[in-house]
């Protein structure tokens, strides 16, 4: 399967995927306590992005991603993601579409 190695790349691509097709994109989290493994998947039924880990640190990053997706899905894909904690840093770093805000 398409496992992405870089966390930031996974987040960027999955948000892009969602914004491109909010109707069919879903975010799946699978956790196995017995194996101590966490797998994240974002797919729009055409393209699939996956990320797997066994690190507690990545679980904390996943919580931030959860917040991002909750906001996107509940409020809509056009919502300003700078409200979500931690996303603002990534947005200004990777996607330089910001209107020259705090840097």
């Amino acid at each position, binding site marked *: 399967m398409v496992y992405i190695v870089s966390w930031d790349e996974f987040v960027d691509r999955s948000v892009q995927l*969602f914004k491109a097709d*909010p*109707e069919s*994109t*879903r*975010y*799946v*989290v*699978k*956790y*196995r*306590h*017995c*194996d*101590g493994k*966490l797998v994240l998947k974002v797919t729009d039924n055409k393209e699939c992005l996956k990320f797997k*880990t*066994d*690190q*507690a*640190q*990545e*679980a904390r990053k*996943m*919580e931030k991603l*959860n*917040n991002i*997706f*909750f*906001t*996107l*899905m*509940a*409020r*809509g*894909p056009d919502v300003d993601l700078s409200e979500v904690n931690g996303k603002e840093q990534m947005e200004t770093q990777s996607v330089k579409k910001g209107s020259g805000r705090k840097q």
Partner: protein
Amino acid sequence: MHRPPNKFSPPGGFRRADHQILYPLCDSREKKSLQCLTICKEYPSEVLLQLDPFLNELTSMFEKSKEKGSVWVTLKRSSLKSKLQKRKLSSAGESIEYRCLIRATDAKKTISTSVGAKDHLRFQASYATILKAHMTALKKRERKDRKKSTEAEKKEGTSTTTKPKKP
């Protein structure tokens, strides 16, 4: 194309791994659709809950799956309306209200809830608490901390040697 009956499959029929026998009417397409029907019947129906009962059930799912098994949580944007209702709403000029559909399963049962824009912050916080409390089997980054400290030492060592000479 029908396979000749043998001791593993009943005549004219098809025995699945779980001993469910399907009798296809004509071709393999029918067989596939019959298989799908029986699969859907076997999985218990999804239970739509309110936010707090959902969180309680999710907690118990995590607790049950500690020895073995997985817990899947799926997030999807949905308006919870059929295509027909959507068409009616858009033709009437009304905006369709979207919610975040959250499903959780441990392969035995599935629970779900839907979160709107108003409740999503509260749900987000409770959900994060549950995850933090249960995802304890993941490794903590001890090795990489050691690596970082050794890398830092190395960097200090090289920086003193590779300082450029000022003219």
